[in-house]
């Protein structure tokens, strides 16, 4: 009996060692590229190229200084932030009331919306972008922040409607009915009672919208020249300028990645629901 227990314990111990080794390998695989990029961004140019790689070195910020001084990098960041923020705000203003109404209307109407969302995602971006490209060149919105902000509504607005509907669905209908019995108008009930209850949902939704705007590349590269250029586009033209100046490339990549990682951690609880449109929670 004792012998049996001992082999069992050893077996368990081996299992846990194997288990944590596997986890270590998996995490290493998924995180190494990011860690390596951040490390390379604080190396000097010759250290970045040294083979075998240097693991211990004196960190330097010269790559960051050079990307911010050689190029108007700060302006590109501001462009990205402004376009993302304005598009998100507009999507929220238009989308939240719609989401609320859809959540309160009889079921069945949501189906059309979900199909619509899917279809805006299915279409190849070129199908959407060519008419915008031609139109914007005619009416002077090409290479303007406003132009890109409007185009970003194509994915931000359906997203807000769909995700916010899920948040409103969690609030019982009786609550707005009680408010309206007490003499509130529907609008008052929505604005001052229901909406504040979805604060955390609103926050998560806006962050997710900001993230997809910050990451968007195809529309940005086709609809902007230099004036409204966003960060991802700036980084790619950067490759052509610097060739293989790895330190600077890594610094640029780090500048894109850090906000994403920070905000990603903040919304991690809503990430799965957000990215599957609530199909998996």
């Amino acid at each position: 009996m004792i012998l049996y227990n001992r082999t069992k314990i050893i077996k368990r111990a081996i299992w846990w060692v194997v288990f944590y080794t596997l986890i270590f390998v998996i995490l290493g695989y998924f995180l190494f590229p990011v860690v390596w990029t951040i490390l390379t961004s604080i190396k000097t140019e010759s250290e970045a190229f040294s083979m075998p790689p240097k693991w211990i070195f004196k960190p330097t910020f010269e790559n960051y200084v050079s990307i911010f001084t050689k190029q108007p990098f700060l302006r590109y960041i501001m462009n990205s932030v402004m376009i993302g923020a304005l598009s998100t705000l507009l999507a929220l203003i238009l989308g939240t009331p719609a989401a609320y109404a859809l959540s309160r209307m009889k079921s069945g109407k949501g189906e059309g919306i979900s199909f619509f969302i899917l279809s805006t995602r299915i279409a190849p971006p070129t199908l959407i972008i060519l008419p915008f490209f031609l139109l914007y060149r005619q009416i002077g919105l090409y290479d303007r922040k406003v132009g890109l902000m409007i185009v970003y509504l194509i994915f931000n607005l359906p997203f807000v409607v769909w995700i916010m509907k899920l948040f409103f669905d969690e609030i019982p209908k009786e609550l707005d009915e009680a408010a309206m019995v007490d003499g509130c108008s529907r609008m008052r009930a929505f604005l001052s009672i229901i909406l504040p209850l979805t604060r955390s949902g609103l926050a998560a939704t806006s962050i997710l919208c900001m993230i997809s705007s910050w990451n968007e590349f195809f529309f940005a590269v086709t609809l902007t020249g230099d004036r409204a250029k966003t960060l991802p586009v700036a980084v790619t033209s950067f490759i052509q300028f610097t060739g293989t100046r790895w330190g600077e490339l890594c610094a640029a990549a780090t500048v894109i990645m850090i906000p994403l990682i920070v905000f990603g951690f903040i919304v991690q609880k809503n990430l799965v629901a957000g990215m599957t449109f609530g199909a998996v929670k």
Partner: protein
Amino acid sequence: MENKKKKRSRKMLLYVLPAVLVLLAISIYPLIRSLILSLYNYNLLRPDRIRFIGLENFGNAFSDTNFWNALKRTAYFTLFGVSIELVLGMLIAMLLNRKFVGKGIVRSLMIVPMILSPVAVGLVWRILYDYDAGMVNYFLSFFGVSQLAWLGNQSTALLSLIATDIWQWTSFCFLVCLAGLENIPQEPFEAARIDGANRFQSFRYLTLPFMKPVLLVVFTLRVIDSVKMFDLVFIMTNGGPGRSTETMNFFIYQTAFKFFHIGRASSYAVIITILMSFTVSLLVKSLKKGGNDLV
């Protein structure tokens, strides 16, 4: 009373109207304009020659080997990449679907790849794949694999892009699968164990059927996005070497923004849209059959 209710629901429509109007304007307008453009010989560089040519663009597309090759590459990229992402994601999720110290941290860290811009991911992997000082060659040298120009080689470039896509999106498949696994009720598994089912049996007859809707959702979303993949090609290979990484979306982009054949590019985009709508509606149908009413 009945009247009041009707009035109320009409009022509710006012909440929906602004969003619907804006959405129609920004999505239906381009759709119709693209359909019209696809029937024209429309080259931005020769505005004097713009004319209606009916379905000629479509005919040309089907006899163009570059179009077919791009389509094949996209199908290859999508099917190969997405199926590996799904299998790997599911395996890792099954491994981590238990109680252990550090689970929360592991789960948090696993979101990193999927949250990054494809542009940043492309940049990072472009450096990792470098012939002389790239980490891929460095690590593989420990296993006796000789140096290789991963992105500079016709036979490995597309595979390298697929591997990058797998790196980024396996984490997404993993997170969704883990969420799915955690939602599965435990009782049937206990009952099965009491009845003497082995691990494989309970996986085959319990886990998989329970997970089928989740797997289908992930599969559908990944297929949609993978077919549209553009950023990685743009940043890592620019379609080369030769045309070996010219996937559909990149091909359409080049047609429109390098050669300015707007009409031709529109016809390609229309063909892809029709193909994709067909594929996705099939997937959604099988989702509904599985009793998932969420998509």
